[in-house]
């Protein structure tokens, strides 16, 4: 039976941001002057959102994978022999894909460097604002620009690999196996383009001298997304090379 008392106890939920719990992270609105939220709360929220989004993308590739595996074992009707035959012809992947993989993995390292620099800048931003204090940064190399370049190089390499495949007769509609090669590489490419756009937004944000915190959040989640793209690519490559 319920009883009514006058003693107040509040349990603190594990993920509560405390008294400021209600506000969205400022960077999504461009509200740069907004500092009432601690950085770690904003960063955690953005990372959580990214993680949830990645789960959604993973489901897309899970369904492609299941379609790929099921299709391999499926016999099809052949009208000439009037019987069920296995028509799966394994595709020989172009060697170029290894080169592309290398480029993408290197870009994963460069974006990590960019992400760490953003974190450092955010940490030093308070100190730097004190008059007379100057922070000497290692700004000689723009890791961000380098990542964008490597990303574009990867995409160009993928396009060349596509042409090579098509030249050997494995164009998209040629066989079921080649359809899947184009599908998986193409969908990965589309998602990578999304990452490139995010990188460009992050670059514009740093050029516009948005607050170091907002830059960090943007850089951080783009970085994690880019790492996810690299892992996803390695997965696709392994799938296409070894499960054929």
């Amino acid at each position: 039976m319920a009883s009514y008392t006058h003693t107040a106890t509040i349990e603190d939920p594990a993920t509560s941001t405390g008294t400021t719990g209600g506000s969205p992270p400022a960077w999504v609105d461009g509200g740069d002057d907004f500092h009432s939220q601690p950085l770690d709360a904003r960063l955690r929220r953005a990372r959580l959102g990214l993680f949830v989004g990645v789960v959604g993308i993973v489901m897309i590739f899970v369904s492609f994978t299941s379609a790929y595996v099921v299709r391999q074992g499926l016999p099809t009707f052949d009208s000439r022999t009037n019987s069920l035959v296995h028509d799966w012809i394994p595709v020989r992947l172009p060697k170029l894909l290894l080169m592309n993989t290398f480029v993408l993995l290197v870009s994963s390292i460069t974006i990590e460097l960019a992400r760490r620099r953003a974190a450092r800048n955010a940490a030093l931003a308070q100190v730097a604002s004190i008059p007379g204090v100057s922070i000497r940064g290692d700004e000689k190399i723009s890791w961000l620009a380098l990542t964008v370049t490597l990303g574009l190089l990867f995409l160009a390499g993928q396009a060349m690999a596509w042409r090579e495949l098509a030249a050997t007769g494995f164009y998209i509609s040629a066989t079921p196996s080649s359809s899947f090669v184009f599908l998986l590489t193409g969908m990965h490419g589309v998602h990578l383009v999304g990452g490139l756009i995010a990188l460009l937004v992050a670059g514009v944000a740093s050029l516009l001298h948005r607050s170091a915190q907002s830059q960090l959040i943007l850089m951080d989640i783009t970085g994690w997304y880019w790492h996810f793209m690299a892992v996803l690519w390695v997965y696709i490559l392994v799938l296409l090379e070894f499960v054929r």
Partner: protein
Amino acid sequence: MAGGTGGGETIMATREFTAHETHAHAAPQGFIRKWIFSLDHKVIGLQYYFLALTAVFVGMFLSLLMRIHLIWPNITLPLLGDIKPETYLTLVTMHGTIMVFFVLTTAPQGGFGNYFLPIQIGAADMAFPVLNMLSFWVTALAFVVMLGAFFVTGGAPLHGWTGYPPLSAVQSAGPGEGAGADLWIISIALFCIGALMSALNFITTTLDMRTKGMSMMRMPLTCWAWFITAILGLLAFGVLFSAGILLLLDRNAGTSFYVPLTVFSGQIVAHKGGSPLLWQHLFWFFGHPEVYIAILPAMGLCSQLVSVFSRKPIFGYKAMVYAMLSIGLLGFMVWGHHMFMSGMSPYSAFAFSIMTMAIGVPSAIKTFNWLGTLWGGRIRFHSPMLFAIGFVSLFVSGGISGPFLAQPTLDIPLHDTAFVTGHFHLIMGVASIFGIFAATYYWFPKMFGRMMNESLARWHFWLTFVGTYCIFMPMHYAGMAGQPRRYSQFTELHYLEKLIPLNTFITFAAFVTISAQLIFLVNLFWSMKAGKKASDNPWEATTLEWTTATPPPHDNFGGHPPTVYNGPYEYGVPGAPQDFVMQTDPRTVAAH
């Protein structure tokens, strides 16, 4: 009438606060920023709601045309002319697609979820407002593209809302299977993108934006329902998206994912080796969770309303949460029951059948908990409560035929008959629609600051409640008598002649029920302008949306996020000054 006494001191307190300093974005001033490209979750919620309202009237109009054609197949309609068999299939397709995606998925989650999830957990907005705006506009674009399918050469597609290939995958398969089918797939893909972004936002908001004291187990069951629905959406819509991409490639890039070597209109298609069953697996892996995406928000809302209007705590709060979670989980393991007729192995069919019937257990837990809450309550029969009880009724009537269809031996004769049409319309269609109505009547005072007209609402309820039963109950009998689904014409089939009077009755019931929705429409818009002014807490409910002003300010709580001390359903607490204790009331209620 539940008087306007409000929540006591709590409401008085929030009135005094005017500051906006903790909100990330200032209240927009111009019309376009405020009402069109708004970042405010409340405006986006209303945008979703009115999108669904538009869609539901389009969908209802299409269903009326179908009912007219079924009993008067040779009639020439003014402006529309004859309904040819292929036109009938177009109506079937577009009615189903529009209703499932743009009404049942859009209004309960996108509409009310967007508006009230942040308020009920004490947040100022969704976690990512820009993403929220994008979700809505992508969904709206998807709707425009979907309607566009009516106006291209060949018209809208005729492959049904399930879009089974090869019919949906071959351009020459039928009059609507050219540009119309492409637009249909593109629209679905866009909808998936919108739904995924929205799911991401809902999950992050629920996990990370709760105010101080709002632990997961203090959330109203509505929030739990929206949260679980978002998880289902996140896992399901990606799969539908993938399936749609494969279909687009088959249609436009010459691949053969779905299309086997086959003949259409005397011509061999340019595909070979594809598997139509692949689509069915992918589609129903999405399609079955989609049923729960449509009904879970209504379940959450019904739990809320049954408690509020019975003036009793919800019976078994934790059981309700776990039941919803297990419905969500099991929902992903039962897609095969849509495919018993596809030649699947009897062993798989057996497994899918067992899993499907297992869903009956959490569903029964929910039903009995609703009844347990009603039992001995001091029930206030306001219009939201009528629709909530109507929901329970429809949920039981529609749900009980589920275990029938879940058994392969029974499903084989019943498959693709009107029995199935009756079953899923009751449970997925009308039950969720009742959830939407209940939510509208319940939250209208908070959204627009006025009460809806109660007597019009009662007329609306009784006509709709009796009307929908008159439409969909007889369909079960028609199905058992062998009336097939999706046939444009059956009046000339000798063995179905005896069903013509029954079908005539259904059509007239549909006329009356659809006309009754005009009462709702009039009530909705009239009450916005001229309804009685609502107090801040007209239903004497405990959750956070009733502690704030009406309509809520831009950041929901006037700059002061609430602190939560109590669970969401503290009604009839002994010793309390009123029969309800607000969630923000610092004098806590000890554990029951």
